[in-house]
């Protein structure tokens, strides 16, 4: 891991009130994840213990401590999508990519995550690939999207 990069992020946020949250976003946006080796430097700068930094990162579903695949697919498991049979969609994606939730496909192209509501409930079922939401998802659409993002 590149310490200079990390230090730049830390410098940007260490004096900001409540700066730990935006700092962690900055690191993850940059590196794709928050490496556990960074906890030492972060804890010193933010006047926290390493345990507190770990506790913070592990509390939030959004933060990851492992590299993800090229694309992150989030499948909405919440009620509105359940009402539109997301369970079948969920099973189809898992089978197609041969992975379960929180796993990355062998070719490292896709990481699969559950999500609880994308605010696209009027067009359930929905999935999100990276920052793009896709509504009224069908098996055909999944095939198409996976080709597109590969």
């Amino acid at each position, binding site marked *: 891991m590149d310490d200079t990069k990390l230090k730049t992020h830390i410098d940007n946020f260490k004096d900001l*009130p*409540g*700066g*730990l*949250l*935006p700092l*962690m*976003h900055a690191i993850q946006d940059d590196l794709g994840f928050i490496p556990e080796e960074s906890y030492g430097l972060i804890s010193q700068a*933010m006047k926290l213990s390493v345990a507190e930094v770990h*506790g*913070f990162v592990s*509390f*939030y*579903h*959004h*933060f990851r401590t492992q590299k993800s695949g090229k694309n992150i697919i*989030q499948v909405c498991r*919440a*009620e*509105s*999508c*359940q*009402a*539109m*049979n997301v369970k079948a969609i969920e099973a189809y994606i898992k089978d197609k990519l041969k992975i379960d939730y929180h796993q990355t496909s062998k070719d490292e192209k896709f990481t699969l995550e559950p*999500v*609880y*509501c*994308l*605010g*696209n*409930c*009027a*067009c*359930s079922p*929905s999935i*999100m690939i990276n*920052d*793009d*939401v*896709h*509504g*009224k998802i069908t098996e055909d659409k999944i095939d198409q999207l996976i080709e597109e993002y590969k």
Partner: protein
Amino acid sequence: MKKIYIPIDSTAVSLGANKVFKLIEIEAKKRNIDLAIVRNGSRGIFWLEPMIEVETVEGRVAYGPIEEADVTSLFDNEFYNGKEHPKFLGKTDELAWLRNQERLTFARVGITDPVDLNDYINHDGFNGLKKALSLDNQKIVDEVKESGLRGRGGAAFPTGIKWQTVLDAPSEKKYIVCNADEGDSGTFSDRMIMENDPFVLIEGMVIAGLAVNADQGYIYLRSEYPDALNVLNEAIKTAEESNYLGNNILGSGKNFKLEVRRAAGAYICGEETSLLESLEGKRGLVRYKPPLPAIEGLFGKPTVVNNVISLATIPIILSKGAKYYADFGVGRSKGTLPIQLAGNLKNTGLIEKSFGITLRELLFDFGGGSASGKKIKAVQVGGPLGAFISEENFDVELDYEAYSKLNAVVGHGGIVAFDEDINMAEMARYSFEFCAIESCGKCTPCRIGSTRGMEVIDKITSKNEPEKNIALLKNLCGTMVDGSLCAMGGMTPFPVMSALKYFPKDFGVDAEQVEN
């Protein structure tokens, strides 16, 4: 030049609005037709999205839902002159979905370009702020109190009283925090305001700051809404450049700074004290109350924590007056509620209505019945912590008190319909599962009870001493209600118990076994 509108709202985009936009641009160039394309917000008629509009001498006309394959024929039929086409819907304002609403908070949504400040101002924007600048603190708070506005996030606490507490709290530093962690399934009204009319939220927050003497605001925005983040940041920058935000707002000598903070995927952070912990850079553990956030909130200072819709409703209350707003609604539920129709419905989207409409009107008059064509079996109102409503209660008027009598909640106005294929025991089990995933872990009944709840439901459905386990489930739910600090543990029993009460057969038991 012909003016046409193609929505940029993320639901419209999730159905291909950006692709349609690009194709229309290309086709126009090819045919040498001069089009001025506005990326407007969505009207909230999501079953017709992507819905494009064309400005004609008689007003705007709509076409939808537009697929990429429709673009060539749209041009062949001269849609840009408002001409007929199989996807022609008529005048937008005359569509029944829109005509039958009372749009106050959402007055501009879908009509304007979200990030065009002049468009905002030309549609009554900042009239509320100008009014507020002419009033003293107490007068602003009084206006909000008299409007009867209650917290639209779900808790329905009177907004004016909250503001009064913060105004009366002596402190040099105070904060306005906007709760934009809209995590309830079936809800998207906050997202729509932020993506489609961000200036109204900014205006509401500035007024809140003026009312209670706060000069710093934060919008705590869920990470699942990247488009809203971009729109808000752009709108904040524009508002600062035009002196609607920042120092010496419109020459008044008053200051207000506003910043968006991204959340990180924890549902519990929609609970106000957990949200404040998260904003302070900590794990989002729920706090004890008292002290109330209005007395000791963010960084220990008096803080107004309001939902997006509550804050976005402030400008119209100030500009049109408390009475205008309070004249809508029924009983103690004053004004309007943005209702979101979702799940298994034919026509889904956003409807802003006065309180007092029934679920039956919403599901069938607006919603057109289920999408699958099957019978609607249950409806969850108010998000994952809201009760399931069965058909026998479809005629109860939607208002806070009437729903409370049903052991149900109006919440944030999300309505998710399920058809008869749904198994309600599975939904009850999911309520516990969701609670187990999202519990902050502070209160034992919530942290552990949620997992035990799943196990007890499994025992009931597998016919393992059902009567004994039903009694245990009721007891567990009672413990969670009484022994949890916040609504996560305290309300998860609502959907569970309503599922058991109204749909015992799905649990493999009969009504008498449940009642005993």
